């Protein structure tokens, strides 16, 4: 168990990507119309982080995974019914607002405090995982702020791969510009990894894992601590759908030769 790691995965819940989103402005700033009734899923990049965590834990016996998630209790319960069937974890729920408009700094403060308070978490063995960006705010700053608050100064973003070595060091591939990966080697935990898509397929649902997880998830949800996110001086002047609507020309009656000629002319035009 020399390489047993404690993996904390920060994962928000987001509206199902197939839903139509419409911003509305309320007394507390912008939000989404019918936000509470939109079906939710685990944030896609954070879900990659969770699946990679499960893969890493399986290869390193004695490892443990905590899933820290901030959202309304009812929404968390709905999403956990699905996610709990995929990988084993202990849920650390935080009962708070959902969405992309709350301040990332307040969110990070709440997450960091919750992680610091996890019983049995060995910070020397900590790998802090999450998505490199969310599908809501998409800022890519929350996880980094959590890391700073926890004193983690080996941080990697846009991660697609981690290889944990026998000596406790690990190699990380991070996405950089131009479709390349930066290759780094870190001497060991603690470290923070903001995941991109990784290389793993979504695990199949396993009802046995689901039943085992739900024994701890339901009590944890009942005890979820409420969190209020402060605005920290963040003000929204506007939030709107893009108005740009193109006047699409639908070309139905051209032969492939004619289309090709038109396209080549278009490609060559400045």
């Amino acid at each position, binding site marked *: 168990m020399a390489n047993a790691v404690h993996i904390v995965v920060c994962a928000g819940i987001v*509206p199902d*990507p197939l839903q139509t*989103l419409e*911003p509305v402005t309320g007394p507390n700033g*912008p939000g*989404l119309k019918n936000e509470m009734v939109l079906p939710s899923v685990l944030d*896609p*990049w954070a879900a990659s982080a969770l699946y990679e965590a499960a893969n890493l834990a399986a290869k390193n016996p004695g490892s443990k995974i905590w899933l820290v998630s901030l959202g309304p209790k009812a929404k968390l319960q709905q999403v956990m019914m699905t996610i709990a069937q995929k990988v084993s974890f202990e849920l650390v729920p935080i009962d708070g607002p959902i969405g992309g408009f709350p301040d990332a*700094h307040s969110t990070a403060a709440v997450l960091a405090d919750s992680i610091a308070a996890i019983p049995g978490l060995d910070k020397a063995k900590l790998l802090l995982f999450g998505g490199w960006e969310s*599908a*809501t*705010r*998409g*800022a*890519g*700053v*929350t996880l*980094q*702020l959590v*890391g*700073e608050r926890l004193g983690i*100064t*080996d*941080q*990697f*973003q846009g991660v*697609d791969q981690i290889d944990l070595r026998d000596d406790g060091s690990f190699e990380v*591939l991070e*996405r*950089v510009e131009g*479709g*390349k*990966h*930066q*290759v780094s*080697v*870190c001497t*060991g935990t603690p470290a923070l990894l903001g995941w991109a*898509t990784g290389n793993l*397929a979504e695990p199949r649902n396993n009802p046995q894992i689901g039943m085992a997880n739900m024994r701890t998830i339901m009590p944890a949800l009942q005890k979820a601590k409420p969190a209020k996110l402060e605005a*920290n001086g*963040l*003000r*929204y*002047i506007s939030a709107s*759908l*893009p108005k740009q*609507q*193109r*006047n*699409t020309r639908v*070309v139905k009656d051209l032969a*492939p030769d004619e*289309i*090709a*000629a038109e*396209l*080549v002319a*278009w*490609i060559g035009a400045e």
Partner: protein
Amino acid sequence: MTESILVLAHVDENGAALTKASLEAVTAGVELAAQLSAPLSIGIVAAIAPSGTCVLASTGARLLAVSGEAFAQPRYATDAAACEALCRAAAATIVLAPGSARFTRVAAGVAYRLGGCIDTHITALSATEGVEASRWFYRQRVEAVLSRDARPWFLLLDAGTHAAFAAEPATAQIEQIAVELPAVRTTVSGLRAPKQDAQTIRPEAKMLLVAGAGWTKKQPDGQIHVDQAGELILGFLRHTGASLGSSKSLVDQGGEGVPVLPFLTHMNQIGQTGATPRHAKGLSTCCHGEEPHVVGWRFIGDRRAISLDPNCGWTRGKADVVYIADAFQVMAKVNALLGSAKA
């Protein structure tokens, strides 16, 4: 509020020159400083200290630099220390930086250390009533304009939102800023290109070709023609120098071990869980989903699509032209024309 502006910049992977994204941030800084009548500083992170002549001389900004072997490679611990030192030296209230992999890795941490705040993926700045920044939420579905009271306020700019700063090099005074290096536990060993036949992701390309899952579906003869699809796509990239994007469904097929278009990886993916690239033109082929057209194409200028579905709701209002045709036939003709034009 009296503002002072700092632009953070870094050199490219060769260490020879400032990156294009850094020069775009310089332009944004020069413009914002002019609007606010605010002092401007530019802080450079580089292994070798810039000296003598510099293209930034004409900005009139105070030029600062952090240099040393520790900054030859992008790494959280050292880059965060460098940026923190530059920010403390400049004492700026607004910090602009390119949204590069190097600075997005560290900027939020630096903002926290300075007691400030940060917003990223900024697409526009204005200073009519205080500083206001535009960015997108929910993966390019909702656009918002926001402002903050807290300072320093870090703003990371999306690439392509400003012109790159250009000027004749001139003599410049560059102040070296000392950095107290933290313990370094991470070693950067270099860059690795994904395993694929050719590099198909080209951020500087004028055109983006988007390949959808239709390329791997059964064709009118009842057969799948993946090899032919691959040749057509790679042939188009060779002729045009275009960058290749893909829909999620097509990339996922590759991840499931199915031997389809082996040159595609998740790095090619655009849309909800992929990139939102900026190119002047985009050609979508065999895409029938929302993500390429709505999310992935948000910042594509001139958009055309080839689709067999005349009723595809996602192309209507999103593409400028939709050709209802078989992409296999059309792309073969396009490649032939492009090839004969080159010959």
